[in-house]
């Protein structure tokens, strides 16, 4: 696995967690579509890549899955956040905020008086 995909996977994983937090249990197609919508189509992902990310998150215990019925009554696998997932999301959010706050100071220097 190259470093690039690793980073991408990490970011994708966070987006998945955030989506599940916002929308509750959701199937793979729904998650992929939501991520694309939120990014206002600036992020063009292959929907297929969402699945390895989901498997990995589930293996590590951040999300859980079960079969259910979709809006138009199709059988679909629904993913939802576990408690560990929520915790990780909170931690990542905090980290993200700190990082962006620091970076913001570099990119937007405070006005000198």
């Amino acid at each position, binding site marked *: 696995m190259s470093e690039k995909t690793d980073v991408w996977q990490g970011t994708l994983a966070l987006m998945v967690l955030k989506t599940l937090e916002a929308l509750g249990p959701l199937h793979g197609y729904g998650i992929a579509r939501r991520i694309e919508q939120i990014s206002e189509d600036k992020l063009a992902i*292959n929907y*297929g*890549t969402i*699945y390895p990310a989901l498997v990995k998150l589930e*293996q590590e215990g*951040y999300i859980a899955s079960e079969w259910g019925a979709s809006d138009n009554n199709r*059988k*679909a696998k629904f993913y939802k956040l576990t408690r560990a997932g929520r915790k990780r999301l909170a931690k990542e959010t905090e980290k993200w905020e700190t990082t962006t706050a620091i970076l913001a100071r570099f990119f937007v220097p405070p006005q000198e008086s």
Partner: protein
Amino acid sequence: MEMRKLRGWLVRLFGLLHRKQREQEFAEELENHLAMHIEDKLRAGMSPEEARRQTLIKLGGVTLTKELHREQVGLPMLETLIQDLRFGLRMLRKNSGFTAVAVLTLALGIGANTAIFSVVNAVLLRSLPFAEADQLVMIWETQPDVRGPVGTYPDFLDWRTEAQSFQKMAAFSNKRYGKAELSGYGETLEALGCLVSQDLFPLLGLKPILGRNFLPEEEQLINNRVVILSQAIWRRGFANDPGIIGKSIQLGGASFTVVGVMGEQYPLETDFWLPLSHLHPTDLTSRKHHSVQAIGRLKPGVTIEQARQEMETINERLRQLYPATNKNIGVELTPMRHHLAGNLRPIVLLVFAAFALILLIACANVSNLLLAQSAARQRELAIRAAIGAGRGRLVRQLFIESLLLASLGGIAGLALAALSLPVLRSGLLGIVTGKIPGLEATGLDWPTLAFAFGISLLTGVLFGALPALRISRIDLNRTLKEGGKGAVGLGRRNPSSVLIMAEVALAVITLVGAGLLVRSFQKLLQVDPGFRADNLLSLKIELPRSRYQSGEQVKNFYQQLTTRIQAIPGVQQVGFIDRLPLAPSFAISKFVAEGQQPEPGKEPIAQMRRVDHRFFEMMGIPQRGGRLFDENDAIADNNVIINETMARDFFTNQEPVGKRIFMHFGSGEPTPVQIIGVVGDIKDLGLDAPVEPEIYWPGVGGEAVMLTRTTVEPLSLASALRQAIQSTDPALPTQHVRSVEQILDATLASRRFTLDLLCISALLGLGLAAIGIYGVVAYSVAQRRHEIGIRLALGAQASDLLKLIIGRAIATVLLGLALGLAGAFALSQLLARLTAGLLFEIRPTDPATFAAIALLVVVVALLACYLPARRGTQVDPVTILKHE
């Protein structure tokens, strides 16, 4: 976080189990994903075809998605590995003949090495049962003519006070109580005693299991009637009585108080210990009598080399202070471990080296088999490469097969080692002098198993490397075009022939080594001991000093015994000597022959033995001049008989009889003695040692060996002899009766055993090389069936083809032979050192041995070529050509 990652890996590992189910589930999930996506697109007004097309594009391909998913669910690396393993096993099963030969070859190599390693580990590597045993060194004095790890007590005392390299230095002596009678509860036991300085046990880190160690004051002459018993004798003679401490026991006729019982870690065979002050009074004060052995514990960080330098400085000072006694004395230090391994060390190392060569030959053999096989598999491998298997994958596949083979060989080898270890162990126990810690416990322990595993892996890599390398370089197009008939033959620069050459060379080296030992042994068996060894029985007699105090009592005993023995039917004659020849005598002495003036301190040394007046005649030792002893000769008369060597070396062109010799016994004036006779040489120090000057004195003392010449099979008289002793003195402990032929045999036991092992290794080497040659020739003939068929059809004679094939193979063998002989020649110095003391009257470059080995190898190689070559050429060309 890390825990979560670990959990992820574990889940993936288990994911390997239900793969089918998981894949089906995902297929369903993906199907619904696509359906939902397409429905959304249809709702947006797209045509069904367009919707489907765009959905699949957006997904990134169904197969790829499934592939990505599968990789995340399981462990792809492990999966391919398992695949390769499965495939490897299938290949091995398919070529079961090849597998059997390879596994057997490896099992022989690995098994032999594992077995011998377990001995190396026990004897040379495993830590000794003492605290920080690597700090322990033996310190001893070297004398110009005497070998043995001994020094004098006064010198030891000086060492102990002066040397700074040691934390502690202790001494012990087996001299005075080498054997003593010890009164147990009930019976009298014969026990081995050792005199020790008080700090010996603390130095070794040993504590008594009962009672206490000796006290410093007990090393002085007063209050020293104390004894420490070994656990073994405590059990044997005192029924493990915990109340033994403080009790008084009889030891060699005097009473001693038991102060302690020592556990079983003490390295030398000993039944009891006494304070060192029980040394003979002259040994305690004289710098002339070498009677103690010293052990030192090095200070941390001090090397044995530094300690040796310091000891040499001290020794130099002692030499200058006491020139009369110490002028020619040197000092030597050896690690305790080497000392304890004793005569086993060179043997074990030699055999280990030989078996290591055998393992290399085995590797070369299997490598060759694999090469032949991989040539046959070139087509298969080329096809696999053509449909996308990477070179790395192919090489890995071949390595996995090699490692599988090596593992099978390793397992079979372990079984072989387990079977052969008891034999090896009992053989070694039979030849060791004294007790070697850990030897009895030699077995398949963890280090040995680890070793077996290690060498299996190593051999796998070794023999797998060449075929794997070759495969990684195959030319796809050519192989596929040629229909995969890769040829393996014995042409020049062919890796097979290089391997065969190496095998032959290695086999030749081990054969030469074994051959030299065989020749030495033959020469040794031809050595004339100087006496008639047949129909001769030996029996030790030890008269307790307590009951045999006067010379008269001793003399009476021997007279009565002789009368009784001679009355036994089948006994021809009987004689006595204080110590049996073939081993160093009890006493040696410096002497000066009349008319000679050697440099003071460099006087020659003679062995001294005491014999009764019938001894020479009974032994069949020829009289060479003067007269033999008669009944009236007594030791006090100072009349001696010398051997031929002494007469020749010290009375050249003179008549020795009637001349005097001056014996340097003590520190006083030399004692003059008169030569009354000369007798033939006997091999006094062993069959393999040169004869030394020997002085015989008349009459034996309380300790002697009775030799009985019989007219019947000697051992059949053993019980009659014992009975005669019992009737003469019922209180004497019964002794082992052995025939002198048995004793002669025993002096050769260690040689015979080493020889056996080396011969096994050499024959294994030769056998493996022969199998290797056979295999390669057979394979190359099989590969060239077609060509042979055409040649025969065109009128070639089968015999010419046979010559051609054999000629090529033999050229390779001869090259290997030459290399091996050159190698053995180049290694001859090393070989001589490795076989130290094992070569007898044979130079390590003995031309006869080299020639015999060369002949043997050529004959075996010819046979190994001829058999498969004949089979390959005695074919009907029509059948072959039709068949193709």
